[in-house]
C-alpha cells in the first residue's frame, strides 16, 4: 500500500500555493453552464439555475458553517434578480474557478470575507441574469428589451405579454452576458438590509433535516473509525489487528498515513474493533515535548530581534527618555477549534474516480490533495460540500478528507464514511498558536504615550499553508490586529519573530487578532492605569486621526481607521453607562479594534468572587461594519463572536505533555455553557457612511471581547492577568 506522508502532503500544499502567488491552482469551469445544469434547468450564470416550472435555485459558493451565507449570498443575488428570496432553493456550489474568493485567491470560506467579496459580485450576477432573461423574452416576443421588465420571477412585455423566468431561461443561458451591469442604489433595496429577513435554513435546522458531513449516506457505504498517533508527529511502526479484525462487522483493517483504520458495517462496530488494536507508535521528531520546553523555546526565540513590520520615529530613544515606562509580556496559550461536529469525510476512491463528500471551508484544494494521495488526477476528484457543524478555521484544513480517501482506497475502493471521535478531533487539531507578546511604552509626565515597542514571538500559520504570502520573515496573518495600531504615537517599532514550536498551528477564528489585539488592548489599559487616567478617556485622547495604510493587513481596508475608532469608543462609553458606580466585586473593561474593515468597541462587565471565579454579566458592543446585508444574522455573528471569545479567554487552554495533547474532550477543554453566557448582550450598530463597503463580522468580535473581559477583571480586582486563560488560578497568581 502506498502512502503519502504528512511531509509530502505539506510539500504539495506548499507547491500548490507557491504556483500562483496567492493560492491559485489549476481549475476548470463546470463546462458550459447550460450543460452543467441538469435536464429541465437552465443556468444564466454560475450562481443561478432556473427550472422549466420557474423554481429558482441559487448556488452558494461559500460554506455554511453557521454564519448564514446560505441566506446572505442568495439575498444579494435575489435583490437584483428580482425574485422572492423566500421561495428560492439553495445549493452548495462545487469547486470551480468562477467561485474563487477574490479577497483570498481561492475558493475558501474564511477571513470574514464572504459578504465583502460577494457584495458587488453577487448583485452583479443577479442583475446580469435578469438582463439576460429580459433580453431572451424580448427576442421571443420580437420587441425591444426596453419594453420588457422583470417582475418577481416573471417577465412582462407590451400588451400584457407575460413569461416566467423558467420559460426564458434556456434561451438566456445561450446568450452573451451583458458587459455593462448597472446596480440598484442602496436606497432601492428591498431584500438586502431587510431587518425582518429570516434565515432560509432555520425551518430545516429545527427539524434536524440538513445533511452535515457526518450525516452522509451513500449506497454500499461502510464506516471507518481511526487510531491516530497520540504523539504529535508520530507514526504507527507496527500494529497487531488480530483481535480487531475478528470483531463482528469488521470488513478491513488498513494502515494509512496518520494511523490505522478499522472499516466495518457500522460506526460502533468499527469503533469497538478500533479500541482493540495494539499499535506500536514511533513518537517522531517531537519526542518528549512539553509546555515547559515550548515556553522555554518561545522565550529563547523572543530574544532575537525579529522582523520589523511597522516603524516610525525612534522608539528606543523615546523609551529611554520617557518620564515613565510600562512593560509587560503576555503569554497566550494554544487553543482548539472544537466545532460541535467532529471531523469526518465520506470518500469513494476507485481506479478512475474519487467522490469526496465533506464539511469543508476549502473545497478548491481537495481535488489536488486527494489526487496527490490516491494517484488520480485532480479532475477525477468530485467534491461535494455539505453543511458544516461549525468551522472556525478548522475546516480550512483538508487533512481529514485526505485520510478518508486513503482509507477508502486501502480498503479496496469501497465507499467509506470516516468519523473522528471527539478525542481524535481535539488531539489532532491545528491549534491557535501559543505565543509571547512583549510591549513597552514610554509615557511623558502627563501619561501620554511617547514611544511604543511591540515584539511578538509565535509560529507562522501561513508558512505552513500559504508560504508564498510570507515575506521577509513576516506572515501577514501574524501581524494583523497590531500593524493597524490606532494610537498617535510618534515613535514606534513593531517586530515579529517567527518561531515554530513543533505544534501544528492553524487559522483559528480571528487568527492573530486574538493574540496581538488581546495583548495590545490589555496593555493600553495598563498604560492608562500607569497614567492615572480613565481607560476610555486615555484612548480617546491618543487616537491617530490621520488616514493611514497598513502594509500587512490584507484583510483590512487600512484607511481612516482613527475616526471610526473614536466614534465607536464614544458610543460604547455612552451606551454602556461607563463611569456609573458598580457594586463591590464588579468591574467594567473596554477594548477596541479594527479588523476585517470592521471597527468594534466593547465594554464588558464582570463580577469576580473572592475565589476569583469570574461571571460575565453584560457585554455592550458598538460595531461599525458598514451596510448590513442580513441585519439579524449580523447580530447573531456578534453574539457568536462574544461567546467564542469568552470561551477562549476564560477557559481555553490546550497543553502538551510527553508529546501528546492533554485535553481530549469537553470535560478537560472547557467551553462556555448556558449558565456562563452573559444574560445581557447589547449590540449597537454605527450608521454606515455613504458608499461604505461592508466589513467582515464572522471574526473580529472574538478578539475584542477578550481584552475587554481581562480589563474588567482588573477593574474589579486590581489583578492584571498576563497569562491566559483568565482562570481563578491565573488571576490569583497575577
Amino acid at each position, binding site marked *: 500500500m502506498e502512502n503519502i506522508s504528512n511531509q509530502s502532503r505539506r510539500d504539495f500544499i506548499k507547491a500548490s500555493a507557491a504556483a500562483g502567488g496567492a493560492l491559485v491552482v489549476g481549475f476548470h469551469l463546470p463546462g458550459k453552464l447550460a450543460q452543467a445544469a441538469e435536464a429541465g434547468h437552465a443556468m444564466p450564470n454560475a450562481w443561478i439555475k432556473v427550472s422549466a416550472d420557474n423554481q429558482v435555485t441559487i448556488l452558494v459558493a461559500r460554506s455554511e458553517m453557521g454564519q448564514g451565507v446560505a441566506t446572505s449570498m442568495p439575498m444579494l443575488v435575489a435583490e437584483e434578480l428580482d425574485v422572492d428570496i423566500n421561495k428560492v432553493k439553495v445549493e452548495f456550489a462545487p469547486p470551480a474557478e468562477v467561485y474563487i474568493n477574490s479577497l483570498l485567491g481561492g475558493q475558501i470560506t474564511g477571513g470574514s470575507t464572504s459578504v465583502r467579496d460577494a457584495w458587488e459580485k453577487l448583485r452583479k450576477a443577479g442583475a446580469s441574469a435578469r438582463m439576460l432573461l429580459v433580453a431572451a423574452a424580448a427576442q421571443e416576443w420580437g420587441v425591444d428589451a426596453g419594453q420588457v421588465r422583470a417582475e418577481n420571477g416573471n417577465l412582462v412585455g407590451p400588451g400584457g405579454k407575460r413569461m416566467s423566468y423558467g420559460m426564458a431561461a434556456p434561451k438566456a443561458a445561450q446568450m452573451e452576458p451583458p458587459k455593462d451591469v448597472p446596480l440598484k442604489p442602496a436606497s432601492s433595496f428591498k431584500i438586502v438590509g431587510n431587518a425582518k429577513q429570516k434565515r432560509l435554513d432555520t425551518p430545516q435546522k*429545527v427539524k434536524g433535516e440538513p445533511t*452535515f458531513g457526518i450525516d452522509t449516506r451513500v449506497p454500499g457505504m461502510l464506516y471507518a473509525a481511526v487510531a491516530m498517533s497520540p504523539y504529535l508527529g508520530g507514526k504507527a511502526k507496527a500494529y497487531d489487528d488480530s483481535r480487531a479484525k475478528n470483531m463482528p462487522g469488521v470488513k478491513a483493517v488498513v494502515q494509512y498515513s496518520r494511523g490505522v483504520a478499522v472499516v466495518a458495517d457500522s460506526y460502533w462496530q468499527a469503533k469497538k474493533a478500533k479500541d482493540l488494536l495494539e499499535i506500536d507508535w514511533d513518537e517522531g521528531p517531537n519526542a518528549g515535548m512539553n509546555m515547559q520546553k515550548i515556553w522555554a523555546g518561545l522565550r529563547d526565540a523572543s530574544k532575537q530581534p525579529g522582523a520589523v513590520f511597522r516603524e516610525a520615529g525612534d522608539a528606543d530613544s523615546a523609551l529611554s527618555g520617557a518620564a515613565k515606562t510600562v512593560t509587560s509580556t503576555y503569554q497566550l496559550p494554544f487553543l482548539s477549534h472544537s466545532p460541535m461536529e467532529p471531523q469526518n469525510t465520506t470518500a469513494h476512491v476507485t481506479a478512475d474516480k474519487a467522490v469526496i463528500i465533506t464539511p469543508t471551508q476549502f473545497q478548491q484544494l481537495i481535488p489536488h490533495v486527494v489526487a496527490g494521495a490516491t494517484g488520480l488526477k485532480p479532475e477525477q476528484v468530485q467534491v461535494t460540500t455539505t453543511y458544516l457543524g461549525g468551522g472556525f478555521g478548522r475546516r480550512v484544513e483538508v487533512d481529514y478528507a485526505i485520510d478518508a480517501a486513503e482509507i477508502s482506497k486501502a480498503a479496496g475502493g469501497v465507499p467509506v464514511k470516516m468519523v473522528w471521535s471527539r478525542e481524535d478531533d481535539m488531539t489532532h487539531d491545528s491549534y491557535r498558536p501559543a505565543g509571547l507578546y512583549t510591549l513597552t511604552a514610554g509615557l511623558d509626565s502627563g501619561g501620554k504615550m511617547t514611544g511604543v515597542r511591540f515584539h511578538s514571538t509565535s509560529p507562522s500559520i501561513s508558512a505552513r499553508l500559504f508560504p508564498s504570502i510570507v515575506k521577509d520573515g513576516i506572515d501577514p496573518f501574524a501581524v494583523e490586529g497590531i500593524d493597524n495600531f490606532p494610537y498617535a504615537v510618534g515613535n514606534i517599532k513593531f517586530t515579529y519573530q517567527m518561531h515554530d514550536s513543533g505544534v501544528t498551528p492553524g487559522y483559528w477564528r480571528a487568527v492573530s487578532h486574538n493574540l496581538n489585539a488581546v495583548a495590545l488592548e490589555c496593555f493600553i489599559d495598563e498604560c492608562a492605569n500607569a497614567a492615572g487616567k480613565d481607560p476610555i478617556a486615555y484612548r480617546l485622547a491618543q487616537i491617530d486621526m490621520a488616514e493611514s495604510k497598513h502594509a500587512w493587513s490584507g484583510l483590512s481596508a487600512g484607511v481612516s481607521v482613527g475616526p471610526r475608532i473614536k466614534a465607536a469608543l464614544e458610543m460604547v462609553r455612552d451606551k454602556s453607562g461607563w463611569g456609573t458606580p458598580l457594586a463591590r466585586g464588579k468591574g467594567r473593561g473596554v477594548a477596541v479594534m479594527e479588523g476585517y474593515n470592521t471597527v468594534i468597541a466593547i465594554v464588558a462587565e464582570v463580577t469576580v468572587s473572592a475565589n476569583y471565579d469570574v461571571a460575565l454579566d453584560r457585554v455592550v458592543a458598538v460595531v461599525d461594519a458598514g451596510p448590513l446585508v442580513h441585519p439579524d444574522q449580523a447580530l447573531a455573528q456578534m453574539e457568536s463572536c462574544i461567546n467564542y471569545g469568552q470561551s477562549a479567554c476564560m477557559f481555553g487552554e490546550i497543553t502538551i505533555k510527553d508529546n501528546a495533547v492533554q485535553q481530549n474532550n469537553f470535560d478537560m477543554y472547557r*467551553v462556555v455553557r448556558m449558565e456562563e453566557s452573559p444574560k445581557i448582550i447589547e449590540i449597537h450598530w454605527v450608521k454606515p457612511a455613504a458608499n461604505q463597503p461592508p466589513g467582515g463580522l464572522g471574526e473580529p468580535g472574538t478578539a475584542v471581547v477578550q481584552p475587554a473581559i481581562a480589563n474588567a477583571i482588573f477593574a474589579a480586582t486590581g489583578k492584571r492577568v498576563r497569562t491566559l486563560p483568565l482562570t481563578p488560578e491565573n488571576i490569583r497568581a497575577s
Partner: protein
Amino acid sequence: MKITFNVNGKNQTVDVAPDTPLLWVLRDSLGLVGTKFGCGKALCGACTVHLNNMAIRSCQTPVGSIAGQRVTTIEGLKMNNVQKAWIALDVPQCGYCQPGQIMSATALLAANKNPSDSDIDAAMSGNICRCGTYPRIRAAIKAAARMA
C-alpha cells in the same frame, strides 16, 4: 441480538450488539441522523433524545437497556412550540447542536411550564453550542413558554 423498541410512535426491531449506544442505532441502523454525535461521553448534549418523555444522552444509553421503551427523536417532534419559537427567533447558526438543544428544551417545558433563568440554566447546561446561540435559546424557551 434482536431488540425491539418504539421510535417516534413506531415499533422498530434492530439486530445489533446490546452495548451499542442508542445514538448509533438511531443514526446508522434506522437512518435517523437528526440526532447528533458530539462527544461520546454525555458531555455536550448533541445526542439528546427523549426516553419515555425524559431527556437522555443517547450516546451513553446502550440499546439493550431500552427494549420495549419509547424513544422520541427530533424527527418525532411535530413542530412543537419550542421549534416554532426557535424559528421565530432564528436561533440556529450552524445548527448541529440544535436537535439536542430542542429536545432538552422540550423536556424542560413539559416538566416546567414557566421556567426561570436558573431553571433554564440547570436544564440546558448539558447542551454545548460553540456558535453561541445561548442568548437566543434562552429567549426562545421563554417565548415557547408564553405560547403554551
